[in-house]
Every structure is written in C-alpha cells, then in structure tokens.
C-alpha cells in the first residue's frame, strides 16, 4: 500500500469530492458542507506538507498507473498550496453563501473538484493528464462563476471565460498534438529526451511549444491573454474570485515549471535567441506593466485586484524566465511566491467578503470609505493582505518578490533590467494598494451613500485568522517554507 503514498493527497481530495456530492443530496444544512470541505482539503494539504517535510524518499507509484502522474516534491508542494487555497476559499464561501442566501451544496462540490483538477494539472507529466486536469479545473471554475445565475455580471463573466477558455484549451490541445507529431511522445520526459537528441522537426516543436505556452498563459491571465480576467473576477462571487486567483494560477504555473524544465530543456528550445525564455520575458514585461497601470484606473476593488493578479502573473513569469539561466533559485523563488500570493490573496478577498453583508456588499472604493475607522477589526486583515500583495516587509509577499527579483539579478545580463522593470512596476502597484488603505482609513462615506456593514461569520473569520497568521509567519520566518521550496526545486532539476 505504501506505493500509493505520494498520491494520497490527490486520492483524499477525489474521494472527499464524491463524498460531499453524496452528502449534499441528503443534507439540509449546507453550511456544514463548507466545514467538511475545508477540513478534507485541509487534511489533504497537511498530508502533503507532512510528506514533504519528512524528507523521506517517495516510493514510486505501482506500475499499472504508468507515468501519467509525477511522484516528486514539487507536486507535493503544489498539493499543499492548492489545497490551502481551496480549503480557505471553502470556508469563506461557507459564510458568504449563507449571508447572501445563495446556499446550495454544489458550490462546495465544485470547489473540491476544481481543487482535484488543479492537483492533477500540477502533477501531470503527460500531455493527456495535463489536458484532463486543465479541463476538470476549468469546467468547475466556469460553473462556479455562473453560480449566481440571476446576476447578469456573473453570467457575462462566465460566458466570456468559458468561450475564451475553450478556445485556449483547443489551442493548447493542438500544440500538444504538434509536439506529439514532432516527437512521438506524449509524456514530458519522452518529449524532452527526443528534443534533446535533436532528431526532431524544429518548426513543429516551436509551433507546438508556442501554442502550449499560449494555452497556459491564458490560464494564468498573462497579457495579451488576459482579456477575460477582469470580467470573470468581477462577475464571480468574491470567494470564487479568491479561489480562481489562487488555485488555478498555482496549478497553471506548476505545469509551466514542469513543461519548461522537463519537456523543453534542450539547448535549442531553451536558448535566449530561439526558445521559450524570450516568449516568457515578452509575456512577463507586458503583464507587469499593463497589469499595474490598468489597475490604477479601476473604480472597483475587485477589478483592481484582478488587474493586480495579472501583474503578479508577470512577476512569476519573470522568475520562470530566469530559471532558464539560474535554475533552482529561480524555481524555488517562484514556488515561494505562489505560496505567499495564495495566502495574501485569500486574505484580501476574504476580508472583502467580511466587510460586506447582504445587500451591502463591498465592491467599489466608495463602499470601503471609512471602514477602517468604523470597523477596525475587519479592516485590519484586508490591510495586511493588501500590504503583502504590495510586497511590504515583513509580510510573506515581500519575501516572494525578493526571491524572484533576486533570482533575476543572479541570472545577470538582461535579466537585471527586467528586475528593474519589475521593481518600477511594483512601485506603481504600491500606489493603488496604498490608495485602498487610505480610502479605508481616511475617507468618509459620501452623504446618503449605503455603507457596507460587516457580516458576522465564524467561517470567514477563521479563514481570515488562518491566512492572516500564514502571511505573517511566512513573512517573519520565511526559511521553513523556503527550505521546502528549495528542496522541491532541487529534486526537480536533479
């Protein structure tokens, strides 16, 4: 039985998804499902991190399972990040749905299934599992966005995301088919070995690679594949937005890491002149600049956070591009960044949920005016989250940015300039992040405006407490998490 050890988190999530589906059919009290979801996802995450921290060698999977799923520290790390995101979002959703009288158990099932898809995606070592994981994750996210179906915004966002997402998935699939045509393999290791041997048609490989990268860049919301992001983020219910910005992104970046390092490591495709690094740099610079600049102009906090998530994708892509030169430090930086981003983003979106209540949801800057003075305990987590997203020490976000930019500087050459662009873009980011804080603390609501009234929910409060604690702990003591990231990155590069 110990053969299955390394995919225990995945199996836990899968079975709990089916169990919650059944429980939903027979339960009257849907909020309890949120707790069950959070506990099961949390357990899976803890199992993953326990396996990772124990440092023992992972037994290979039984032979019958083939080479579709990775057995390595990297996937355990991502299991942890994704499950953490899923569990916290489920808790936030538990409070949100009850407050807004949208209670239906399907949302929790969808959260778990999306988490499952994301974990499969992060674990995939084959184009087949990559696509299936991506579809499982995407399908449930589409449905989660459209969940509040009486809202025109939600339906619009879901429709846009669905259509563009299907298109992106088709492009990714076609790219995968070209890679298969060029190499005769669907597994990343086989593709990598074949490309390394040099007996391939370079045009096919390059076109295939570009298409796969485009499909993945769509999922992380990198410019110019970001069009859906603001609408989908704004239309979705806030807990779902939190989940999307966290788990989906983490899983897509996991595939990025795996494809770039395992499938496309050859001289030809990983060189600065003709391979993927220039593509990533292109995406990264566009995302950093456009995301930050566009975020400044937003009136809605959710839209602002959507654009900021585009900018964050840019920073992470920068780290990935640097991985072509320095390898391990860049990858571990990316991993830590994703962890920090996960907890900070959940904190920000969770407190946004907490600040509003039925009929008085907090969406725009105006809604937040003076909340800091009226309800300081609800405003505090939001401010911490935003500061962490900004990269303010001593929060987790600071060290995330630090490690990524540090890797870029280590890579030397043009990457130093990229790091400078990233820093400048972050400075722009500081403006709009601080602007929210200023609005919350200094501004008073306009005359006759409906003010947001904080809701009361143990679920949301506990989610905020946990993610807030994580932001501070990873910020004050980054070494523990960083060590895990470093060991995962080292094992991957070998």
């Amino acid at each position, binding site marked *: 039985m110990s053969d299955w050890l390394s995919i225990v988190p995945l199996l836990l999530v899968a079975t709990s998804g089916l169990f919650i589906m059944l429980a939903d059919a027979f339960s009257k009290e849907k909020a309890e499902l949120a707790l069950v979801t959070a506990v099961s996802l949390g357990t899976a995450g803890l199992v993953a991190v326990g396996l990772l921290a124990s440092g023992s060698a992972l037994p290979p999977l039984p032979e019958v*399972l*083939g080479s579709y799923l990775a057995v390595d520290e990297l996937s355990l790390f991502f299991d942890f990040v994704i499950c953490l995101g899923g569990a916290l979002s489920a808790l936030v959703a538990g409070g949100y749905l009850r407050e807004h*009288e949208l209670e239906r158990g*399907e*949302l929790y099932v969808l959260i778990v299934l999306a988490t499952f898809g994301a974990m499969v995606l992060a674990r995939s070592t084959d184009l087949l*599992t990559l696509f299936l994981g991506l579809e499982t994750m995407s399908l*449930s996210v589409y449905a*989660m966005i459209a969940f509040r179906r009486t809202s025109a915004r939600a339906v619009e966002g879901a429709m846009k995301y669905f259509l563009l997402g299907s298109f992106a998935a088709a492009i990714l699939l076609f790219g995968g088919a070209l890679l298969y045509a060029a190499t005769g393999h669907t597994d990343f290791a086989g593709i990598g070995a074949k490309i390394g041997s040099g007996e391939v048609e370079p045009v*096919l490989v390059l076109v295939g690679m570009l298409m796969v990268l485009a499909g993945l860049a769509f999922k992380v919301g990198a410019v110019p594949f970001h069009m859906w992001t603001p609408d989908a983020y704004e239309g979705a219910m806030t807990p779902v937005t939190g989940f999307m910005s966290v788990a989906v992104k983490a899983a897509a970046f996991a595939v990025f890491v795996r494809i770039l390092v395992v499938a496309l490591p050859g001289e030809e495709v990983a060189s600065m002149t003709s391979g993927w690094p220039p593509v990533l740099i292109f995406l990264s610079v566009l995302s950093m600049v456009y995301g930050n600049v566009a975020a400044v102009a937003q009136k809605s906090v959710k839209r602002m956070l959507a654009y900021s998530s585009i900018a964050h994708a840019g920073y992470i892509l920068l780290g990935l591009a640097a991985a072509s030169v320095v390898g391990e430090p860049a990858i571990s930086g990316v991993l830590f960044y994703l962890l920090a981003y996960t907890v900070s983003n959940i904190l920000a979106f969770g407190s946004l949920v907490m600040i509003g209540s039925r009929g008085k949801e907090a969406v725009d800057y105006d809604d937040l005016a003076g909340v800091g003075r009226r309800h300081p305990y609800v405003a505090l987590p939001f401010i911490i989250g935003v500061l962490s997203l900004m990269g303010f020490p001593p929060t987790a976000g600071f060290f995330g940015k630090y490690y990524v930019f540090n890797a870029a500087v280590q890579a030397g050459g043009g990457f130093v300039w990229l790091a400078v662009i990233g820093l400048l873009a972050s400075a722009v980011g500081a403006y709009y992040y601080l602007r929210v804080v200023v609005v919350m603390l200094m501004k008073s609501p306009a005359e006759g405006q409906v003010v947001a009234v904080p809701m009361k929910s143990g679920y949301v409060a506990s989610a905020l407490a946990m993610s807030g604690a994580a932001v501070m702990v990873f910020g004050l003591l980054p070494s523990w998490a960083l060590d895990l990231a470093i060991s995962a990155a080292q094992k991957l590069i070998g």
Partner: protein
Amino acid sequence: MTDAKFLLFFFCAAIALAGAIGTIASKLPLRAAMSLLVTIIALAGLYLTLDAQLLAAIQVLVYAGAVVVLFVFVIMLIGPAPETSSAPGSVVWRMLSLVGIAMITATFAFSFVDVASTWVAPPAGFGTVRGVAGEMYTKALVPFEIVAMTLTTAIVGALAIARSKTASELAEMKRRRVAEDASAAAQPAE
C-alpha cells in the same frame, strides 16, 4: 488492400472537406448542422482507413447520434433565424486572413514534406474493441479515471447552473409577485 485504403481515404477526405465547407458556407443553421453530420461521418471513414474501427463507430455514435442531434435540438428550440447578411469585414481584414491562412498552410506543408509517408501495418488487435479496451483499462488507467472525474465535474457544474432555485432567488420571485399583485390591486376595478 493499400490501394483500396487510399481510394477510401481520398473519397472520405473529399466528402469531409465538402461537408466542412458546407458547414461554414451554409446560411441556414440546420443545413450547416447537416453538413457537419456529413463531415463527421466522413471522418469516421477516415478512421476506418487507419484501422481504428472502434473509434469510427464511437465517432458516429457520439457525434452523429448525440452531438449533432443536440445542435439540431438547439436550433429547433431557438427557431428559424431571420435572414442575416454576413458581416461585411473590410478588404484589409480579408486580405490579412488570407495571408494568415497561407502562412499556416505553408508552415505545415514545409514541416510535413520530409516526413516519410509509408503505410505502417498496425499491430495485431489494433483498433478493435478488445485492443482499445485493453489499452484503456491497463496502460491508460489514470487518464481514464480522471476522465470520470472530469465528466462528474461537468454534470455537477451543469446542475449548479441549471438546478432548482435558491432561497434568495425564491424570495426575489415572491417579492416581484407581491409587487405585481399590489400594482394590479391599485388599479381601479372596471
């Protein structure tokens, strides 16, 4: 046998292309769907030239029997569309799209030119029910199980969007009805 297969290939390929052109060129949605049906069946024929019998059957079963029927179903539910002229599209865009098509075609043509085009005899049991089932339940067990989860996800997602109303939706409906009743009552009786 190879000659017969070549003949079948060209026959099916021609029909598939004709159907595909019909699909995009037809102005009536139902005729487009019927052209799609032709393409789908021709594709099944192409699979047969590759000895993939089961795949061909499933292609017809799933696409012709279910997907096209659903298309037809939707077209029928929506009803006949009013005559719409195709979007004008500027000359520049048309030229650009032609250039794009030419470039893609050229790229693929060049990359496939030196791929040796020899018929390789398929291994024994290839494409048969037993052969495919063997592959699916032994070698590709993991993707197969994940597909099960994917389909479950799709069903749950569809239910989540389409299922019965939530408390808030019901409350809203009730509010609306009460308001309508009130406005009806407010009007003077005739």
